[in-house]
């Protein structure tokens, strides 16, 4: 069905084609009056069969576009050419009832023996626009999610994560404002982060967490209480948000979502997003937002776990440090006692025995062997005490590590049949390894090595022991290998008189290294340990405080 079917004479097949077009087609004469409209045009714009004929074409445009159109039309009549209308503009059409619709229009001049017309082909693009809008929204949501997930991966602690989440929701997600808040121990609400233009709104919220109060049943209180997201597609029309309607309206808030954030499955905070658009929280968007809250909660759990871990590691390290410091102090005290009492007394005895020997030589030569025997006993006890002193005293940390090892081995195996060696393996041929260690590390590494060597001397019944030092990573690895009887069943723990590997392991871990006991190939034992050149700073592991 069409109107003005005789506008340029015999239409013939052309008229049928125009009538069959899925688009609206309108012919306009040189005066701007509609001369013809096809059935689709009548249906789209809501006109009866003859209503349009003779009307100015501007009736198909909303008022604000009509005036401008009249001028354009005059220009087009002077220079007619086929072209689309309103390039780069959103063109709107007006239905008979005054409602508008987005359209695309192309114009074709037609000249026949009866006169000139402009043929307007009009496509209704409402559906396409709706799809485009939806796609843009989905795109924006995905972009937001991608940015948020990146923030979760990069954030160093909860506070940074909250701030980034808010910023991204506003900048990428197009929300009017974002707010992260937590429930305090006193039952009030505390702001952790905000972004956007709603800080004044947030300041005036005056929320309660008491369910018997009208201000205690809003989205935040409900989300914290139930652990469920609260959506408000029409904030002003929502009865649960009544106490805030006036305030929200003055800030242009139209819709909102409140997401619970959980640590160890307990909702401890909320993320509120306010929008100036009537957001339809459809299934797609709800899934996105739920996943966002889940990811943030997951990151919070991670922060809490690593903070706990760091705290534990710190506690252990503090304890070890105190134990070791106490040990060093105690050792120094015993060393001083041994020196000042026993060693000095024996030194005096040794000297006086020397005098006595000379006198005995003169007056009773037959007693000389007894005195010499005594002198030897005193000398051997002195040697034992000197070993004890050497073991007790703080190792000298001035020299290179391998030098210190040689000195220790020389001392420990003085007057012993055990053959020993200390060798340094080069990392690359001709390259002198650097064996200077930080003082604290050197001290612990020497203690470990001396304990391993002392165990060899006392328990291994070995004939030889080899110490090999080499640079590994940014530290030094030491192996102490003997050919003795191998580690006993108690070697992994400390038993009286035998310092097990546990003490050595504690010492190594104290400075950020490791120590283990390996049965040597064949017979005997290898104690292997590694220490870093510098002791690590344990505090760098600690994250900020966690919420809740």
């Amino acid at each position, binding site marked *: 069905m069409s109107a003005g079917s005789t506008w340029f004479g015999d239409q013939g097949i052309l008229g049928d084609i125009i009538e069959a077009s899925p688009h609206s087609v309108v012919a306009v004469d040189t005066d701007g009056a509609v001369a013809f409209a096809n059935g689709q045009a009548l249906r789209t714009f809501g006109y009866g069969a003859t209503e349009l004929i003779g009307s100015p074409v501007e009736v198909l445009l909303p008022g604000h576009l009509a005036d401008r159109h009249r001028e354009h039309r005059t220009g087009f009549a002077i220079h007619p050419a086929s072209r689309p209308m309103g390039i780069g503009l959103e063109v709107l059409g007006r239905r008979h009832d005054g409602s508008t619709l987005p359209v695309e229009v192309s114009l074709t001049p037609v000249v026949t023996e009866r006169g000139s017309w402009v043929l307007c082909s009009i496509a209704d693009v409402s559906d396409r626009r709706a799809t485009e809008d939806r796609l843009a929204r989905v795109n924006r949501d995905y972009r937001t999610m991608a940015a948020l997930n990146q923030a979760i991966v990069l954030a160093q602690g909860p506070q940074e994560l909250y701030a980034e989440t808010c910023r991204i929701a506003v900048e990428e997600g197009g929300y009017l404002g974002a707010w992260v808040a937590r429930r305090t121990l006193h039952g009030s609400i505390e702001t952790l982060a905000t972004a956007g233009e709603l800080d004044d709104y947030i300041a005036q919220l005056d929320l309660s967490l008491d369910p018997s109060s009208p201000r205690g049943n809003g989205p935040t209180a409900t989300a914290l209480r139930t652990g469920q997201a609260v959506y408000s597609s029409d904030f002003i029309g929502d009865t649960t948000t009544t106490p805030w309607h006036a305030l929200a309206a003055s800030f242009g808030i139209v819709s909102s979502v409140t997401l619970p954030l959980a640590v160890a499955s307990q909702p401890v905070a909320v993320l509120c997003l306010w929008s100036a658009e009537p957001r339809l929280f459809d299934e797609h968007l709800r899934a996105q937002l739920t996943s966002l809250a889940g990811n943030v909660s997951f990151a919070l759990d991670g922060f809490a776990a690593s903070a706990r871990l760091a705290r534990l590691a710190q506690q252990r390290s503090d304890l070890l440090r105190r134990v070791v410091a106490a040990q060093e102090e105690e050792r120094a005290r015993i060393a001083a006692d041994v020196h000042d009492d026993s060693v000095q007394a024996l030194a005096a005895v040794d*000297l006086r025995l020397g005098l006595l020997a000379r006198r005995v030589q003169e007056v009773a030569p037959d007693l000389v062997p007894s005195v010499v025997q005594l002198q030897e006993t005193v000398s051997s006890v002195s040697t034992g005490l000197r070993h004890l002193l050497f073991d007790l005293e703080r190792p000298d940390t001035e020299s290179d590590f391998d030098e210190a090892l040689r000195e220790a081995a020389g*001392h420990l195996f003085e007057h012993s049949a055990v053959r020993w060696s200390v060798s340094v393996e080069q990392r690359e041929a001709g390259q002198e390894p650097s064996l200077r260690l930080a003082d604290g590390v050197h001290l612990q590494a020497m203690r470990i090595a001396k304990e391993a060597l002392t165990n060899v001397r006392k328990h291994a019944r070995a004939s030889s022991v080899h110490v090999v030092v080499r640079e590994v990573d940014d530290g030094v690895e030491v192996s102490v290998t003997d050919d003795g009887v191998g580690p006993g069943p108690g070697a992994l723990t400390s038993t009286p008189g035998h310092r097990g590997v546990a003490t050595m392991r504690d010492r190594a871990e104290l400075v950020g290294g490791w120590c283990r006991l390996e049965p040597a190939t064949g017979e005997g034992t290898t104690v292997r340990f590694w220490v870093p050149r510098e002791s690590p700073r344990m505090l760098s592991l600690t994250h900020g405080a966690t919420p809740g």
Partner: protein
Amino acid sequence: MITIRVVIADDDDDVRDALVEVVGADPRLVVVGTARSGDEAVAVCAATRPDVVLLDVRMPGGGPEAARRLTGPRPAPAVLAISAQTGSASVVAMLRAGAVGYLTKGRLTDLTDLVTRVAEGHVVLAVPGAADALRQLLSDVRDQDRTDVP
């Protein structure tokens, strides 16, 4: 025969008395003074001009500091360190400070012979850490030479 003048510095009364007796019993030696600390040793030596000082390493103001102060002014006495600390680090430190001998406490059977040797200009290192100490000193000297070459 010229007797060798000896000062004995040790903070332990028992040890000091025993040293005095042993040294005094040898006709080649004469004890010209005793001291209980590094400071006292410096003062006694300035007053008595001994040939040899028996210097305890582990006593108040003793050790390398006392050795340096004793060997500073000329003519300097020969400083003979005596200690139960026999690690090479302690030996190196005393030799650097000017000591020409280092003896082990508790094994001083031939003490007076060693004192006369030191007085004659010998170096006496009767201590387990001596060999390591010498190696360390020599390698320090080599390092010094290397860095001195332009």
